[in-house]
């Protein structure tokens, strides 16, 4: 049984006489133990999507199953119980400002009617997990953003949930803090086996910890699959945009002028052969390296390069098939990407 299953989900909002479709017929399956990234530009509908997983937003149409249970069939009380087994963290942390760190972590247990002594013991353990034991007695206003998010994570874990939803959880944090929070999430996923759903607009978040990804564009799910696969050969425009966009600052695309451009991705095993050098020697024609980078995708080093090919369609085709023969992922990159 899948941990989360979303079937034909549609969500429309009424704005005066106008119906706005935030999500359009989404189908998505998330397996137990996944770190599942849902990525899209702002306004794409990803935040609405994550809120349908715990029914903070009720879908207009379609169903959401958590461990096989259709959320729509639950009573209000049953739904609240189910929600307590789905932790959630937010971009703005949403801690109770008038409660101490310990009391914040105890809060979901208090709601569930757990005895105070027991709750405090649990909070102590959780604060150890997120490395914040020494902050147990302070109030949220005395914490940095990263520390606040750690408290929020400890709080979300208090009820021992099966699922953790992260809504832009690292968007308000600087790169170093983001990295440490992501590592913490990965640790939690590995140690506790919690399924994690991450909503983000940053491809780097997805490539650094997710194993699967869904791309949401304008309310539609446009692409879904293993992170490695989509990173190597993105099919949809939205996916290409998201993957390329993060790198724009290294090489503005308007500089990347060439008649025909291809993007190639190297994985670890293909990095042994000097492919580009051999390509040039083989065809006796120059190629222009427009940009090049490596990054960590799911623990593997991936090299990424955009090549400007020399003129002549025959030669271009030959080069592309030569590259493909070397087991590289090759995609054409259009001017407007």
């Amino acid at each position: 049984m899948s941990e989360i299953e979303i079937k034909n989900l549609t969500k429309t909002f009424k704005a005066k006489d106008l119906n706005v479709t935030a999500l359009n017929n989404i189908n998505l399956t998330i397996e137990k133990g996944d770190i599942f990234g849902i990525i899209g530009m702002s306004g794409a509908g990803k935040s609405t999507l994550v809120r349908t997983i715990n029914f903070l937003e009720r879908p207009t149409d379609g169903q959401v199953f958590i461990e096989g249970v259709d959320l729509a069939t639950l009573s209000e009380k049953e739904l609240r119980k189910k929600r307590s087994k789905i932790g959630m963290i937010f971009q703005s942390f949403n801690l109770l400002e008038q409660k101490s760190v310990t009391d914040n972590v105890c809060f979901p247990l208090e709601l569930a009617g757990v005895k105070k002594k027991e709750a405090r013991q649990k909070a102590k353990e959780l604060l150890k997990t997120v490395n914040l034991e020494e902050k147990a007695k302070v109030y949220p206003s005395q914490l940095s953003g990263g520390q606040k998010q750690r408290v929020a994570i400890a709080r979300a874990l208090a009820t021992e949930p099966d699922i953790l939803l992260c809504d832009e959880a690292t968007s308000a944090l600087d790169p170093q803090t983001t990295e440490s929070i992501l590592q913490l999430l990965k640790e939690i996923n590995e140690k506790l086996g919690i399924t994690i759903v991450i909503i983000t607009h940053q491809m780097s978040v997805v490539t650094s910890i997710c194993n699967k990804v869904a791309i949401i564009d304008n309310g539609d799910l446009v692409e879904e699959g293993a992170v490695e696969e989509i990173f190597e050969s993105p099919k949809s425009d939205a996916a290409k945009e998201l993957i390329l966009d993060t790198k724009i600052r290294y090489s503005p695309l308007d500089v990347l002028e060439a008649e025909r451009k291809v993007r190639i991705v190297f994985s670890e095993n293909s990095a042994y052969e000097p492919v580009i050098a051999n390509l040039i020697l083989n065809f006796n024609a120059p190629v222009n390296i427009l940009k090049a980078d490596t990054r960590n995708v799911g623990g593997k080093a991936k090299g990424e390069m955009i090549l400007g090919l020399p003129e002549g369609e025959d030669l271009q085709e030959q080069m592309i098939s030569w590259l493909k023969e070397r087991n590289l992922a090759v995609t054409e990159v259009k001017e407007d990407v």
Partner: protein
Amino acid sequence: MFDQKVIEMILVGIKDTLYMTLVSTFFGYVLGLPMGIILNVTRKEGLRPNRIIYGIGDFICNIVRSVPFLILLILLIPFTKFVVGKSYGSTATIVPLVICAAPYIARVVESSLNEVDAGVIEAAKAMGASNLQIIFKVLLVEARVSLLTGATITTGILLGYSAMSGTVGGGGLGDIAVRYGYYRWQADIMIVTVVLLIIIFQLIQNFGTALARFIDHRKH
């Protein structure tokens, strides 16, 4: 001039004033706090939006608040007689004071609760909190500083209104000020009562401000 009798009268006046102010604030909150919570919960962005209930509450609040207190005092005489058995004296004054304060308090409470960060409420919902739990464990707790500040302002206003009720035999320092200062031209007694009112007001305000600072954990 300030013989034993006058001093005793002023002491009784202080006691009556405090009695009217504090008791009417208390009962004002007994009525106004739930009203304020209902307004917050039933508003459009509230936990349980309900246009009809919000509309009724909103209407009542506006109507009562738009009647000047002095008129309300007179209008309510039959009702006051029915509740406490007589229409004069400090206990009788509490009735119109409460009626006047409740809608005002409801508004103050509503706006304090409206200030609570929607994200925190959403987080509580995501944890599986019921609406009642959200009201008592999130809204009232997170808004407590603002609620207390509102209560301090309300108490100060009721202190002023209790003095106004002196004109219709309400008792207290206001009553003394009107009787001696206005009817008998004894400015000294009037000045003393006014100074006492100022001191009481300051004490209430300072106490409220200090307490609010003490219970606020946002900027220690």
